[in-house]
Structure formats: structure tokens, C-alpha cells
């Protein structure tokens, strides 16, 4: 029996793996100690658990445990990396390079840096969502201190050429930070092989708990430091003060361990399901995949259905299928997804998009149901879409003088 509702919004957050929860529970009650309490067994237990989890987390990304700074999540990690580097390396320069399709936690932090007097270059992406490496290299100047490009995009799943980006940054003596939120635990990420200097990631996108994440900060070749953004007890090598969230960290560790073990299998299974979903939905006339299909996370698809509005589309099945849309009819601005617009999509196609994020617990039965529901809703809404009617009559929609609000 198919159980409803179906969750296909795993880019927003993932359900916690029951194995993770099981590992965490004792650390709320029996082992409740403060990892910074050095003088009694309660503290020792907590510290031991943290050390173990730090190894699990580091091992997933090929890092040394000492290079893991626990944070409250990736928004904090993004802030700490960018603001921390900006402050720490102020004597070297004040220029940061990022891209227009980054997460708001990166873009808004960069806006903040600009207010502080820093200079930020926002690279445009190509129409497949990838950055142009030549443009990146050309943007580097003597005052550049940081390149901040995400590993994989949250809306379209496109995976950036991280190794090449890192090599360019290294060649010019510039640090490379990547927001690894969507990639870590889903595809192989190795900070050494990839050449990453700093990376933010979070537990709740990889079947761990919310409220815990990490910032990887390289210790060798080069040794990287960030200025703490919160003052206090000097935890986490002085880079992030605050009593450690022991149950969260234990859960994060377990989530990383499971991801490392099961990633390849999960990815193979999910890419098959994703392709089935995508190929079936592409059978619908005038439907398009957004972003590069080859360099992409295995579990993500972003598809536009021309002449149907995304939010209206979601309403057709959102009691039964949880998805998100690039349309933003509810937001005050009424602006559609800035990521899709950055690919050069017209606002109309951006408004017509759905984002699918499959996950560890997605089944084929769920995908079959989703295909059927979405196909039916698209066809139904096209029957009531004036744009579809005009399109079918051969009217060029661009020739109409629309009343813009």
C-alpha cells in the first residue's frame, strides 16, 4: 500500500535515519555532560563521544578530525567561512569571488562584506548552471583573498567543477571555500583530492538532525584560519565558541558514517529512479530540464512545464506529494527563482518549474504515483491556461503587450 503524503523535497531537508536517532538518544539523558567539563566522568563521556563523531565526520570528506569545526548548520558555516576569512586575511586583500546562483547564506554574507567595504565579484553562470572557469580566472586580482563557489546547487542539483576551481584558486594563492551542503553525503567529496580549503555542510541534509553542521578548515598546505564570529569560551580551536551540541554531533557523526557506507548504493538506486521520473515527465509536451544533466546530483531534477504556473501546479497534488517550485507567487516580491533566472530562463519558465529531491527513503512506487499525478495536473491546468491556448493557436506570446504590474 502506498502511504501518502510522499516526500520529494529532500533538498530542503531529509528525514532523520532511525539509526541516527537511536545513536543520539542516550546523549540527551544518561550522557548529558558538557564536553568542556574536564574534571569528571560526565564531561569525559561527552568529550569521547565528540571525538568519535569528529572522526566520523572528517572521514566522510577525507579530512583530519582537527580540521572539523562544529557549527549550528551551514548558514553559520557559510557566514563563519566568508566573514572569518575576510577579517583574518584583511592585510592581504578584500576581494571575494562568488557566483549568482549561490545560496542566500553565501550571497547575503557577501552583501554584508560589501557593506563593510569589501569588494565582491558575482560570476554569471552559463545556461547549464556551471560557472565559466576562464571567467573565474580572469576575475582574480592581487587583492583577491577568497573564491566561494558551491559544490552542488540546491535548486537544480548542478555540480560545479570543484577540482578545476580549486586548482585555479591555488595557482593564484587564493583560498577556496565551497558550500558543500547538497553534495556531502550524496556524492564523493574529498577535501584533499578536490583541493578545498574551507567547506560548510550540515547534518539535516544527509539524514541527520537539524541544528548541527560543520565547517572544514584546512590545517596544512596551506594552514587556514578564520576569525571567530562569536565570542566566548574559545571552543573549536578558538574559531567557534559555544557549548557543543553533544547529541546533535553524535547524530551527525552517525549520519556521516552511514552516508560513507551507503552513498554509492543510494546514488545508483536514486539516479535510476530520478531518470525514470524525468524521462516520464519529459514525455509531456513542452517540458524542459533546467541545468546541466550530466554534471548533476543523482537524486535531483528540476523541470519546467511551459504555460503552467508552478504554484498552481503544486496545488494539484501537494496534499499527497511534497515538492517545491521555482515560482514565488506567495512572496511579496512575486519574483521567481533567482537561480533559474541566472540560467537565462525567462520569468515565465522559472514560474513553471518544479524541483524534485529524491532521498534514501524514496520508493519506485512513489515515483510511479508522482509521474501519474503530475502528468494529470499539467494536462488539466493546460486545458485552462490561456497561454497554452495561444501557443497552440500559433500566437507568439512575445508579440503580446502584457500589462506588467
Amino acid at each position, binding site marked *: 500500500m502506498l502511504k501518502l503524503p510522499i516526500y520529494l523535497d529532500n533538498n530542503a531537508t531529509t528525514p532523520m535515519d532511525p539509526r541516527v536517532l537511536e545513536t543520539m538518544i542516550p546523549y540527551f539523558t544518561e550522557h548529558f555532560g558538557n564536553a568542556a567539563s574536564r574534571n569528571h566522568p560526565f564531561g569525559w563521556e561527552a568529550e569521547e563521544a565528540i571525538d568519535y563523531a569528529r572522526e566520523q565526520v572528517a572521514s566522510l570528506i577525507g579530512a583530519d578530525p582537527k580540521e572539523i569545526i562544529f557549527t549550528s548548520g551551514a548558514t553559520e558555516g557559510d557566514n563563519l567561512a566568508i566573514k572569518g576569512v575576510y577579517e583574518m586575511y584583511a592585510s592581504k586583500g578584500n576581494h571575494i569571488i562568488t557566483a549568482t546562483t549561490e545560496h542566500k547564506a553565501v550571497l547575503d554574507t557577501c552583501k554584508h562584506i560589501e557593506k563593510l567595504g569589501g569588494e565582491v565579484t558575482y560570476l554569471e553562470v552559463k545556461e547549464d548552471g556551471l560557472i565559466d572557469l576562464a571567467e573565474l580566472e580572469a576575475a582574480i586580482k592581487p587583492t583577491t583573498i577568497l573564491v566561494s563557489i558551491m559544490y552542488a546547487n540546491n535548486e537544480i542539483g548542478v555540480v560545479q567543477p570543484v577540482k578545476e576551481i580549486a586548482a585555479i584558486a591555488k595557482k593564484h594563492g587564493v583560498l577556496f571555500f565551497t558550500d558543500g551542503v547538497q553534495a556531502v553525503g550524496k556524492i564523493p567529496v574529498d577535501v584533499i583530492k578536490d583541493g578545498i580549503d574551507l567547506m560548510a555542510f550540515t547534518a539535516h541534509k544527509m539524514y541527520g538532525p537539524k541544528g548541527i553542521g560543520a565547517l572544514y578548515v584546512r590545517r596544512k598546505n596551506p594552514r587556514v584560519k578564520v576569525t571567530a564570529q562569536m565570542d566566548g569560551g574559545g571552543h573549536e580551536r578558538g574559531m567557534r565558541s559555544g557549548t557543543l551540541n553533544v547529541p546533535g554531533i553524535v547524530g551527525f557523526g552517525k549520519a556521516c558514517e552511514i552516508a560513507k557506507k551507503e552513498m554509492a548504493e543510494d546514488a545508483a538506486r536514486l539516479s535510476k529512479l530520478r531518470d525514470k521520473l524525468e524521462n516520464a515527465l519529459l514525455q509531456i509536451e513542452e517540458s524542459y530540464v533546467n541545468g546541466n544533466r550530466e554534471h548533476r546530483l543523482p537524486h535531483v531534477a528540476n523541470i519546467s512545464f511551459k*504555460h503552467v504556473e508552478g504554484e498552481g501546479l503544486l496545488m494539484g497534488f501537494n496534499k499527497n506529494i511534497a515538492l517545491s517550485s521555482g515560482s514565488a*507567487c*506567495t512572496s*511579496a516580491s512575486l519574483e521567481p527563482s533567482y537561480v533559474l533566472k541566472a540560467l537565462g530562463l525567462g520569468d*515565465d519558465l522559472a514560474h513553471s518549474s518544479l524541483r524534485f529531491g529524491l532521498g534514501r527513503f524514496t520508493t519506485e512506487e512513489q515515483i510511479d504515483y508522482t509521474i501519474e499525478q503530475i502528468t494529470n495536473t499539467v494536462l488539466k491546468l493546460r486545458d*485552462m491556461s490561456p497561454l497554452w491556448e495561444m501557443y497552440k493557436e500559433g500566437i507568439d506570446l512575445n508579440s503580446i503587450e*502584457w500589462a506588467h*504590474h
Partner: protein
Amino acid sequence: MAYSEKVIDHYSNPKNVGTLDKGSKSVGTGLVGAPECGDVMRLQIQVDDTTGVITDAKFKTFGCGSAIASSSLATEWLKGKTVDQAMAIDNMDLVEELNLPPVKIHCSVLAEDAIKAAINDYRVKNGLEELVFEEKGVH
């Protein structure tokens, strides 16, 4: 965001979806909104030339559930009214009937604009001058 039951009902069972002959003198067509803004409504009225009564109304809408519901309800209300009575339909009546939240008020404004545009189209086709309506300015 949770939709009101009335919005869900109009979305699931929209009334009067369709197309009238826009070339006919007794049909007024209003096309408002823009694809870039995420909503476009086309509302049409069929008017009895002798009585001035709207005998039929049809719509097609590209937009969210609230936009679809607003236009569906508007067509319901239009049928049986005279053109003069139709001009008195206010977007806030749609808001109230459908329990639209503040972020969706623009959908009702669009429906009111569509009614007025359809009426004007009918008037112009029949040799009457175009009426000037004041801007709601919600967008």
C-alpha cells in the same frame, strides 16, 4: 500556506473554463496579467444586446490556485448580471468570499481588472467609449 476550502473547491472543480468567440460583437474579452508575473487571466462575457444581460462567462487562467479560484468565482458572479451591475464587482468581495490571505489579494485585483477589460472590449466593439477605471495599485 493552507488554502481555504472555497479556493480548493474552485481549483478542483473550476466553473466556466472555456473560450467564447472573441470575434463576435456580443462577446467582450479581457486579457490581463503577464507571464513574467506568474499570472495571466482571460475572462470573456457574452452579452445579450437588447437587455444588456451577461448570458455567459468563460475564463482561462495561468496562475496559482487563488488566481484560478478568483477567475472561476468571477465568472459565476457575472452570469445573469447586466453589464452595469458587473462593473460594481469589487475585488474585495472576491477576497472575502474566498478567504484570500493578504499575499493573494493581487489575484482578486487581477480578476476585477479582467472583468473591466472584458466590459471595455464589449463597449468598444459596440461603438461605446472605453471607460476609465481607477487603478487599484496593489501589484
